[in-house]
């Protein structure tokens, strides 16, 4: 990224450094996740594999949301792209093999995101959030009112199982997509996009003065984020065999990545992934320990964490360290 300094000379922005040691926790997470299906977990192995699958999907959603948030866009349209991925996969899967339907559905969601991005370009803050929320509702209504023969209408439609329903293969596919999401996030972190997104987040006018093409970078953030969120939707649809407008485009699918990213640590790669993992594991542990009312305890833990850890779990990890923003 280059711009003009106030004296007219060309200002060159260096690529941000990411110290290798700061990648260690992230690398460790992925190593553990890769080894997970081979751990001697006894009779709990298959059950934990299911939990782990949905944790990886939650990680994809949260991290993809965070990538958009880095450009200052607090979106509530994530459910729309997640749902578009799910529906795109279900419908395109009828005319092409799954491994083509998957990227095609993601690309479709990405292209639609450019429309939303262009329309909401001048909005920010609460107004932007409301517009994205309305967009989700519009997409849901359109899908619901398509002829039942086309997209299942309000009843929803069955989706073929991903990879023949093989739980281990599905897990590795989800692992691969989370890894891809993390690599994209790291690539952004290491590129000049990082500075561009940060500049836009801190003030669009200032960013423009610095020579940042605000329109271009905001749309790019939207595109990247939506493609990845749609891949999460594909995973969900192929795992649960069924999608309907009400549940697939549910507000919960927009709120969950937001809270997960805040809990884990905003504007980082590891934070949203860690947030998804800790929240899912905590929920499951509480669920097994407190059969009735576990959601109350879970909610309290979440509230206290956000109160006492304003920078999320990453705030704990980074305490006393420098340069570890990964």
């Amino acid at each position, binding site marked *: 990224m280059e711009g003009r300094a106030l004296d007219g000379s060309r200002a060159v922005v260096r690529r941000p450094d990411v110290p290798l040691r700061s990648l260690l926790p992230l690398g460790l997470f992925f190593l553990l996740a890769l080894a997970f299906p081979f751990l001697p977990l006894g009779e709990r192995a298959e059950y934990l594999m299911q939990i782990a699958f949905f944790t990886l999907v939650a990680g994809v959603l949260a991290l993809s949301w965070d990538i958009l948030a880095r450009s200052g866009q607090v979106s509530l349209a994530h459910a729309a792209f997640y749902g578009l991925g799910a529906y795109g996969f279900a419908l395109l899967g009828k005319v092409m093999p799954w491994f083509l339907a998957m990227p095609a559905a993601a690309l479709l969601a990405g292209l639609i995101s450019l429309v939303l991005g262009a329309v909401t370009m001048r909005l920010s803050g609460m107004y932007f959030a409301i517009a994205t929320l309305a967009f989700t509702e519009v997409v849901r209504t359109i899908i619901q009112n398509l002829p039942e023969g086309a997209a299942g209408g309000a009843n929803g439609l*069955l989706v073929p199982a991903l990879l023949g329903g093989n739980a281990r293969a599905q897990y590795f596919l989800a692992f691969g997509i989370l890894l891809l999401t993390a690599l994209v996030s790291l690539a952004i972190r290491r590129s000049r996009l990082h500075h561009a997104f940060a500049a836009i987040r801190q003030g669009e006018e200032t960013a423009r003065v610095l020579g940042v093409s605000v329109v271009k970078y905001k749309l790019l953030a939207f595109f990247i984020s939506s493609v990845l969120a749609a891949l999460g939707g594909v995973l969900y649809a192929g795992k649960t065999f069924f999608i309907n407008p*009400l549940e697939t485009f549910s507000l919960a699918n927009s709120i969950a990545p937001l809270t997960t990213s805040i809990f884990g640590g905003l504007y980082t790669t590891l934070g949203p992934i860690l947030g998804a993992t800790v929240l899912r594991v905590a929920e499951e542990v509480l669920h097994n320990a407190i059969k009735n009312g576990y*959601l109350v305890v879970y909610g309290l833990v979440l509230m206290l964490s956000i109160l006492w850890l304003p920078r999320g779990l990453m705030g704990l990890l980074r305490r006393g360290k420098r340069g570890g923003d990964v």
Partner: protein
Amino acid sequence: MNKMLLTGVLLALSGAGAVKVGALLPLSGAGSVTGQAARNGYLLALEEINKAGGVLGKPLEIEFADDGSSPAKAVPEFVKLVTVDKVEFMVGGVSSATSIAVSGPAKQYGTFMAWIGAAAVPVEDAFADHKYFFHYHPWSYYNFEAILDYFKHLRVTKKARNIAIAYEDGPFGSAGINDTVAAFKKAGFNVVMTEKFKTGSGNFGPIVSKAKAARPDIFYWVGYDTDALPLVTEIKQQNLQVGLIYGTPPSWPVGFEKNRLAENVAGLSLWLPSSPNAQSRAFVNAYRKKFGTVTEEYFAPLAYVNLKTLAAAINRAGSTDKDKVAAELAKTNTPTPFGTLTFTPSNKTRYQGFKAGNWLSFQYLGDDRVPVFPLKSAKKTTVWGK
């Protein structure tokens, strides 16, 4: 009584070797009211089964799991029940989406499923090839079949011809609305109005005005409990002259029967606490004795019947072998609070329990919901408003 208690205690003490049943229910989330009602039904049935000697001379155990009304939670919980808790039979299942989500693991593990809810047609598709799937609740198309039967009866007895339809614009109201209109027309009715509304908006003025101009005999609305009172208030205010207001919300507002505006409003239910049959009365008494109250949720007696019939089939089979139990459960022919339960093929599955004939049409009369159709279950005849 003492003998029964002693049997229960001995069975409890001999805990090892109990027959384990897993119950996947929405105990939290959107479907939790239904899920909790079903849980109570299971607890009542479990108590009675174990007091009467359990199954195969062993106590029956039930392991509850909360699917959180979410497919993403239902799948791990289902797998946990089967692989970790090692339940031999699965019961429960309320939401269609969660039921479809568990169809993959169910087929993978060959799980025996005696399922009480999940009435949407895609569930029928998902389990069409599963040989251990017993479905108790009528499929959604049976609901409409029951309504149509009632309306045909009204055509004969009350000369009902014209139907006005108001439906909420979400999945609940919109699903299959075109088929509904087509079916009414095919049955010889005139559909004089078809209007959608946003549930919870409370604004029924324009719809009722249109209905007034269309002069329907039956005003048929498909929405939620929150729409019931605003709608009947508007109908009263605009003095819509209609023979019958018929609604099919998943549940009715609490205390609706006490409101004078509810008088003569009709609806559909699989069961009412006031149902006249002996099994229903026995269930209501047993439920009141155990929980100190009477439930209005039909999922409570449905879960009760579900576990009782499954336990009886295991006993008749003489083992927990899935094929033997399936063969015995398929032979079920027993009176229940909903009428006689038998299993016959549906459009796509092999074992369908209750069907269109088990639905009851009722009217709010006085302070109660009174069955008015089918005639064999009716306590009163329909009060016609025209």
